[in-house]
């Protein structure tokens, strides 16, 4: 199991468009993906979970990934967030 703490940098946060990208990427890995924010933990492959997390800009979230391809999944998902989901700002 890997835990990785990341800051949401893009202006819109984990909004619907970003959430679509996140879920689609997470679904490409076998590992379980969880996202923790404050006290709550949600399934990272559930768009409803992500939207109800309401992670705005400057939110700190923790990815908890467990499975055979956890290393690769963690790197890919971390990159997606750090690259602002491909958004300009």
């Amino acid at each position, binding site marked *: 199991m890997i835990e990785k703490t990341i800051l949401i940098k893009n202006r819109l946060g984990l909004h*619907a468009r970003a959430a*679509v990208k996140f879920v689609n990427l997470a679904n490409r890995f076998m590992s379980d993906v969880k996202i923790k924010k404050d006290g709550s933990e949600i399934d990272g492959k559930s768009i*409803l*979970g992500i*939207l*109800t997390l*309401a992670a705005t800009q400057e939110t700190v979230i923790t990815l908890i990934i467990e499975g055979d391809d956890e290393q690769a999944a963690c790197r890919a998902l971390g990159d997606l967030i750090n690259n602002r989901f491909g958004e*300009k700002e």
Partner: protein
Amino acid sequence: MEFTRLRGIGVSPGIAIGEAYLTEQLVFTSRIEYIPPQRMDEELGRLRAAVQRTREDLVRIREIIREKAGAEHAFIFDAHLLILEDKSLTANLERLIKEENIRSESALSDVHAKYQKIFDTISDEYFKQRKSDVADVLAKIYRNLESQREENTEDGRDKILVAHDLPPSEAALRLSQGHVLALALDMGGQTSHAAILARSLNVPTVVGLHNITQRIKTRDILIVDGTDGEVIINPPPAVQKEFLSKKEKYDVYRKDLKKVAKWKSTTLDEVRFYPLANIELPEEITNALSYGAEGVGLFRSEFIYLQRSALPTEDDHFDIYSRLAKKVYPYPVYIRTIDIGGEKNLPQLQIEKEPNPALGLRAIRFSLRNRDLFRIQLRAILRASVLKNVRILIPMITELEEIGEVKILFEEAKEELVSKKIKFDPAVPLGVMIEVPAAAAITDIIAKEVDYLSIGTNDLIQYYLAVDRSNEFVSYLYKPLHPSVLRLIKFVIETAVKRGKDVTICGEMAADPLSAIVLLGFGLKKFSMNPIFIPRIKKALRSVEYKTVRRVVHQAMALKTAQEIEEFIIEKLLVKHPDVFLMMKATT
């Protein structure tokens, strides 16, 4: 058969006769219906089939929207598909059916209520509003539980769509599928998104009918008269016949307009003029071109903000502008940066109400205060300029310093794109709107600093005459032909022409035949207006001699009142061109 006439507001002209299709406002049930345990598998099968049908619908709709409205609008269906596939959602639904033995309808309603509650606890407004996406998906499944779907509008038959209201995404979806003969809504006004879209797609539409959804049933026969704002329910044959002949006349009239659109835009003495279109949505272009527009003289970009709940990204802007530029090519498109603030509020930014919005923080004043938003817009416009037919237009300039600040930001945006090796047209013309009288009075100074000018006559006249024309007590004072207004506009046009700068008018004056002739007399060649007025302006300008108009208009400038000017011009032009105003009458 009962026969009723309903009055509303006609927002898209034309007449249609056909079967009604009522889009029901789905109300989730609060009643819990149980199923016998032995029917559980059957019920699960019913739910799964509905989910599968919904998936197929969403995929199909996504492709239609992608093709007709652009990837920008299609994205929301990706989100809806993921919601549909969300394990927490399906697991919840199936658990309710298996463990509580309730019908799928009850399960969907239960899950709907649960999610609405969860989203309601979120304080961020954007995330809170995502509850409507969940509701939308659940409602689609709900509707698909009925395997008999012949009542669906998507069955390929042409129908008249009747609804309480059509939110933007729904309007784009329903109307772009092409099977809507006409539209009749309880709610709405001239500028609702549905009205704009209907006009641009030539779908006759009447809105503001209050309760038509309660007065008709699906399959009732309706006549929708979008020209006169009337809907007739179950008309007897005699009335149907009457409207069929009205429809024929209208169709002939439209064909006639299209003919005018193909004529050359020149005066009798071969002076070329250019009719341009004022539009708000890229979807309006096809229609504008069919009316004879030779470009878009005003694209009101604020609609990009008003259409969505989150702030648009640079790519959102870019997607729209580049679609626009491609559709208009080889003609030009003038993209006006947002004219927001005042009464046109941005839902995303919670702008404070001002005591005097017309004189407040709006247009370029707003953009210079919200520079990040402005930079995004400038970059997106530049990126969309690769076909070299895009211009930038800055609204509400008051003083020279504002132009200086805009230019710095504009150059920065260009440098940024250069450093990122993104292609754009380095010669994108930068122009300003002349709508504040103070700017009009220094046209000679401003003209040196910009590539072109565009006169916004609506605001200019309102500010110059100090008249709010929506105020019934003073609106009689709003006179575009007031000598002072004409002197000011003459000064702006002549100064621009003298300095070799391109000048356009994009207010209602350009759409009024007499005013347009006066403007031509000042030397104006570019007239931008609501596209439906282009044919009549073309007819009017084609029927006069530039030489004569110039002489008559210059003589008229010595007169004392708007009325004297109007009478003088009509009289003098009638001598030379007896058919000018006759033609105007026939087309108005």
